[in-house]
């Protein structure tokens, strides 16, 4: 092993049908976000990503993958697994949005209320989370992120290349418009 490895900045796990995807299937630009529901920077990027998808509805689709940093965010893992439990019922993005819109309410009690608010069965979801039913899925996303060079959250890949710019709407628009034209 005499040649040093390059630290990569490319997505290694391709997007598949197992992913949580929103936006048109034939979009020319795919954004993959590695995110943590308790991360304030992800929370700050969330409305901008939302607006980006609205303004570029025909060209951009969005993928979310879990990257909980549980040692600094005690509620992140549970939130991620709860989103997966919602996803198993076809409601991933509603739960995702609720979590980013209620980042001050991620403790188990408020989280259950949120689940209920979305019309999902809180006891059932809690049981699945307690039983670790969705833990492997979250872990798989995390490990894939680590191997792709994710070093914190949020990390975005725009058409498989790591986004090195900011998360303001203007930065995001610039990045996706550049990707759409290449």
């Amino acid at each position, binding site marked *: *092993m*005499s040649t*040093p*490895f*390059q*630290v*990569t900045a490319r997505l290694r796990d391709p997007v598949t049908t197992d992913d949580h995807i929103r936006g048109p299937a034939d979009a020319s630009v795919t954004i993959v976000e590695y995110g943590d529901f308790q991360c304030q920077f992800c929370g700050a990027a969330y409305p901008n990503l939302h607006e980006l998808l609205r303004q570029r509805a025909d060209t951009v689709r969005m993928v979310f993958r879990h990257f*909980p*940093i*549980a*040692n*600094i965010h005690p509620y992140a893992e549970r939130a991620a697994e709860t989103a997966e439990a919602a996803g198993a019922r076809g409601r991933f993005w509603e739960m995702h949005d609720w979590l980013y819109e209620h980042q001050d309410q991620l403790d188990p009690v408020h989280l259950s209320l949120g689940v209920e608010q979305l019309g999902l069965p809180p006891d059932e979801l809690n049981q699945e989370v307690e039983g670790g039913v969705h833990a492997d899925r979250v*872990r798989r996303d*995390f*490990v894939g992120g*680590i*191997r*792709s*060079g*994710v*070093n*914190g959250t949020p990390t975005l890949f725009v058409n498989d290349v790591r986004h090195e710019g900011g998360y303001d709407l203007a930065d995001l628009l610039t990045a996706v418009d550049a990707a759409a034209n290449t």
Partner: protein
Amino acid sequence: MSDPNGLIQPGRPAPGFTLASTPDGRRTGPEQFRGRPVVLAFYPADWSPVCGDQMSLYQAAAPVFEQYDAAVLGISVDSIWSHRAFAESRGIAFPLLADFEPKGEVSRRYGAYTPQGEAARALVVLDRAGTVAWSYLSPPEVNPGADGIFDALDQLATDREVMTR
């Protein structure tokens, strides 16, 4: 002064050392983990935001390091008391070693010391026998992530399979 040859390169035997790792005087070093791959993560300082992210990231990745049976050691010139408070605040369970007295001595021997008086942000992976298998120097303000480390650990596992075949 840093090692004029720069960061230690693959193929070299890793200089042996132990450094204080707990306030009660316990000392930790790579030789204690012979037979396992060892990741030495030199970093400039506790508490600076990038470092926090990098060490927090390695803690979050602990289950993956376990899969490789790899030991992770963080090293900076901070005192053991700073390390303890930092580890508590970030939930870091792997050892943070204090290259504190004589200041930066171990970092220097690995070619990972800066004129600013801090450890460089450098990653060094040792194989099971204590030979440097991979090293990487990151710009101080860039969190290098863990992908390079895991590529090196994968390569070590592959080499080992070939040898035992």
